[in-house]
């Protein structure tokens, strides 16, 4: 087990190294000189240019520059946004809270509704099951931005129950402001989790050990709780983990739709303004979060299911 974890962690470090190289190197793919890219094509006084050159070590070879950037990033310094004259760290710190709250809120919704609806669909046959299937099919086909505008129109404009733009102040107000965005972010994933849960529980119900348990006269609720759900938990945990990881990038869309001041929306804004230091910094943070979540899911999967052959590649 420890060997498996060590191996996954080594792969994590390798992946992050290559990914950080790609993120840093992307700047040099941009048409024009790196300094033009860094300044967004603005003409600045020569002494500022020289300062930027020194700050970004532009007279050093590429690999040295990458190494300096990476070591600074590992030490928690992501550089400086040139158009804003502000440290990328500060810019990220001001916004990461909103993104974390949003992703956390959406994850709670996914686990709560996805798993419970899946179980209800699997256990209750007939009309209940059809209803669950129908609801999950509709919400699976609803992209986050589409869900966002529909929710804004129904619950914001028509009913006026929730605010449609911006982040609130204080706990209750924040929850109120984040409710619609979290639902929009969770819609597709909830449907996916519902489907996987439903299939997993169905499959487990048809297993022989469940029939044995029933024929031995165990109460139905005990059979479901101890025999069915416990075994079905393995695929459910995996899919929940993977979908939550996918929310990290998707949050950019929802944050933009609801004008939330989060990391994703700011990344989009920085991409439009060609503020490269910010694009690199936020991309790095998002990739790290995404990769770490995936590794945690992998390890959790191995811990949950002793049958997973550790060390060998999963098919």
């Amino acid at each position, binding site marked *: 087990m420890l060997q498996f974890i060590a191996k996954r962690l080594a792969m994590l470090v*390798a992946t992050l190294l290559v990914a950080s190289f790609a993120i840093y190197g*992307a700047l040099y793919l941009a*048409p024009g000189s790196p300094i033009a890219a860094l300044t967004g094509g603005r003409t600045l006084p020569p002494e500022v240019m020289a300062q930027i050159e020194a700050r970004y070590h532009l007279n050093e070879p590429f690999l040295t520059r990458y190494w300096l950037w990476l070591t600074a990033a590992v030490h928690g310094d992501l550089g400086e946004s040139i158009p804003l004259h502000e440290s990328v760290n500060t810019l990220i710190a001001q916004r990461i809270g909103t993104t974390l709250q949003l992703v956390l809120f959406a994850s709670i919704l996914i686990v709560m509704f996805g798993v419970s609806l899946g179980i209800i669909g699997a256990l209750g046959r007939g009309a209940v099951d059809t209803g669950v299937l129908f609801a999950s099919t509709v919400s699976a086909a609803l992209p986050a*931005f589409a869900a966002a505008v529909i929710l804004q129109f129904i619950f914001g*404009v028509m009913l006026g129950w929730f605010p449609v733009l911006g982040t609130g102040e204080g706990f209750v107000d924040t929850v109120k402001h984040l409710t619609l965005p979290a639902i929009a972010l969770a819609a597709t994933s909830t449907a996916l989790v519902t489907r996987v849960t439903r299939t997993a529980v169905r499959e487990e119900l048809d297993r022989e050990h469940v029939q044995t348990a029933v024929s031995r006269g165990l109460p139905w609720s005990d059979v479901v709780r101890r025999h069915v759900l416990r075994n079905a938990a393995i695929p459910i945990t995996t899919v929940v983990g993977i979908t939550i990881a996918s929310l*990290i*990038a998707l949050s950019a869309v929802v944050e933009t739709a609801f004008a939330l001041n989060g990391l994703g929306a700011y990344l989009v804004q920085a991409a439009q303004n060609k503020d490269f230091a910010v694009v690199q910094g936020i991309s790095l943070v998002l*990739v790290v979060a995404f990769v770490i979540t995936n590794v945690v899911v992998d390890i959790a999967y191995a811990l949950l299911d002793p049958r997973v052959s550790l060390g060998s590649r999963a098919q």
Partner: protein
Amino acid sequence: MSIEILDPVAEVIDNAPANRRIPKLGFLGWLSVAVIALALFLAIFGPMLAPYDPTLSNLSYSNVGPIAGHPLGFDDQGRDVLSRLMAGARTTIFGAAFVSLIAIFVGTALALLTAWFGGKTDTFISAALDVLFAFPGILLAVVAAAVFGPSLLSAGLALSIAYSPYVARVLRGAALKERAMTYISALEVQGFGAWRLTLRHLLPNISALIVAQGTILFGFAMVDLAAISFLGLGVQSPNADWGVMVSEGKTSLLQGYPLVSLSAVVCIVSVVAAVSFLGDRLESNSRGGNR
């Protein structure tokens, strides 16, 4: 090795010779085919058939609802919504087709390479793909927009790169299984070359799965491309595109005039739902029939 759960009844039907050519789709399946056919028709002919110029604005008709000759009314710039929807089908549908074709091509090539050579090639390519998995498609597209400037091309290329490893991973399993079949080694012994075996035997035998993957991918590509255009990093306004229209209509929607955004949403969702339904069908058929 994954455990295949086969529905015995479906398998019998699937193997019945009379049904081999025409896949069993059912009513919803054929409805999906119809929706996709309509979308393709619009993508090809929509811009020519649009009753009005999709970019011609007339501010005195700003946010005017449906009137005679304009069944979907006007957007905030006073442009005909129906014409914009028809013209916008082109970038939306062809953009997604372009992304899924490239991803399928690259993914299939990688899967065949790994399956054929195995060993070190397999390890190397699989490791490279693991790294690519670290980049969610949308993130890659945003970075591409920052580097190359926002356009449909940069967003499309970024998404194709991000999707390829998913295709490669799914097809690799199927290709490995096919590669291990005795008929392949029998042909190899007879001296048939790697190219011929891969292209004439391996590829056709996993083609059903490739088609299914392509269909599923098309749905994802449409959603992600529309999302990127919605963010302002893909197709650029005033060009018509369904994703762009959703974001253009948002200001009016918040003021209580939702027709522009919602009509574009309806178009996107119905095509995506049709494609993903058909993809699921094709995939379960190909997995059931192609053992």
